[in-house]
């Protein structure tokens, strides 16, 4: 009986979850992400190719988003956009990339499957090999 009382007391005094609700405005997650510098939204690691992007449609829970982006130099391979949640190690649905013009692209079907910190990874690929990569951090 004594151990029972001890158990009851210890359960009742357990640390409560203490919710810490974020007060950030996440209504425009893409537009609110921070560019790496004044002139570049993101920079490719190996080539220093500079990427700038413009949001066309913010993604929401029921609507896919889209954005356009331009590169400062021609990429050495095909360009792919991957939405990635690094904390949990998973991606989202595939993003469609189409070329609009010289070094100009549109990414559509942009959808984030859950809230949290995501990365938009721009990968320049030769077949299955990633030659270069630029990453934009967004908070959904």
């Amino acid at each position: 009986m004594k151990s029972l009382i001890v158990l009851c007391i210890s359960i009742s005094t357990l640390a409560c979850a203490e919710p810490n609700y974020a007060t950030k405005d996440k209504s425009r997650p893409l537009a609110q992400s921070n560019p790496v510098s004044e002139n570049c939204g993101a920079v490719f690691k190996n080539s220093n190719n500079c990427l700038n992007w413009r949001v066309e449609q913010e993604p929401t829970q029921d609507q896919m988003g889209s954005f356009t982006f331009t590169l400062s130099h021609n990429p050495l391979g095909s360009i792919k956009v991957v939405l990635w949640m690094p904390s949990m190690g998973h991606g989202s649905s595939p993003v469609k990339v189409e070329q609009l013009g010289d070094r100009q692209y549109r990414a559509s079907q942009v959808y984030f499957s859950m809230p949290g910190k995501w990365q938009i990874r721009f990968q320049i690929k030769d077949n299955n090999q990633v030659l270069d990569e630029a990453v934009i951090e967004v908070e959904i």
Partner: protein
Amino acid sequence: MKLRFSIALFSLLFLINAKAFGAPCCASATSGPGLLSNEERSHLTTRVSRSSISNNIDSDGYWERTKDPVITQTMELSGAILLSDRWQIGMAVPFSERTTTSQKYSGLGDVSGTIGYEYLPDWDYHPWRPRAVGYFQITAPTGLSIYDEGSTTGSGALGQGFWTLGMGTLLTKAWGRWDVLALGEIHRSLSREIKSQASLTANPGLGTSIGAGVGMSLGAWRLGGNVTWTYQDPISIRGNIDSEGTLQRYASASLSLNYMIDSTLAAQATYTDQNILGRPFNTSLSRIVSLQLRKQWVR
């Protein structure tokens, strides 16, 4: 006295079923090991549950209320049978349907099998020594997971996506109308390729959960409460994307009511809330209501 004692022990086992609803990101519907009580030769159990995500916790520990509901309804069949006085095997097969505002997925969840050994029997009704069962559990990634083609979003997942090997122990003790339980479990999930993204390997590492519960029986009724803390190693990714991952952590608090319909059939209603206790981290928290019917064959 004997009947009340056995009610308490039967009920203890049900409590365990309220634990582990899987890593919340991609909730599997697999319940606990569903071990036999010391009065049982075998059992068959049907459980239906409805789980809804209420908060998402990011990798900085900030909370966010879910705006659009993600609801998982699960029906699970489980059973266990004695092989000898002290050895038992069991199996659990869940079917889930997961609904978000825009999508609906349904199908088989992760199927698991258990082999258990009673290393501390309670034949002599010892005043304080508990009954203890150790077990090994294997979980197959039969449920659609975020790593499979066809499941493009985390919220559509019905399973964890990994082969998982676990071992654990369950300790139970009853005194008169009171009973207590403690459980500890550690598991390792095996690395796998991610099919939906070319050339990626996911390395999930170790996970563990510990829990404790207490219950009180009155006639054919029993009221019980338990708490389980769950921890999961970061899932690192190698290949065309390198990411280290972040640990996941949450605690589930459950309240359950049992009723012995007759000496071989028991019903249970359970409410589980993951929003109350612990310091949840990098996870989604759910509220779960479940109803269960357990048919028992005594020794």
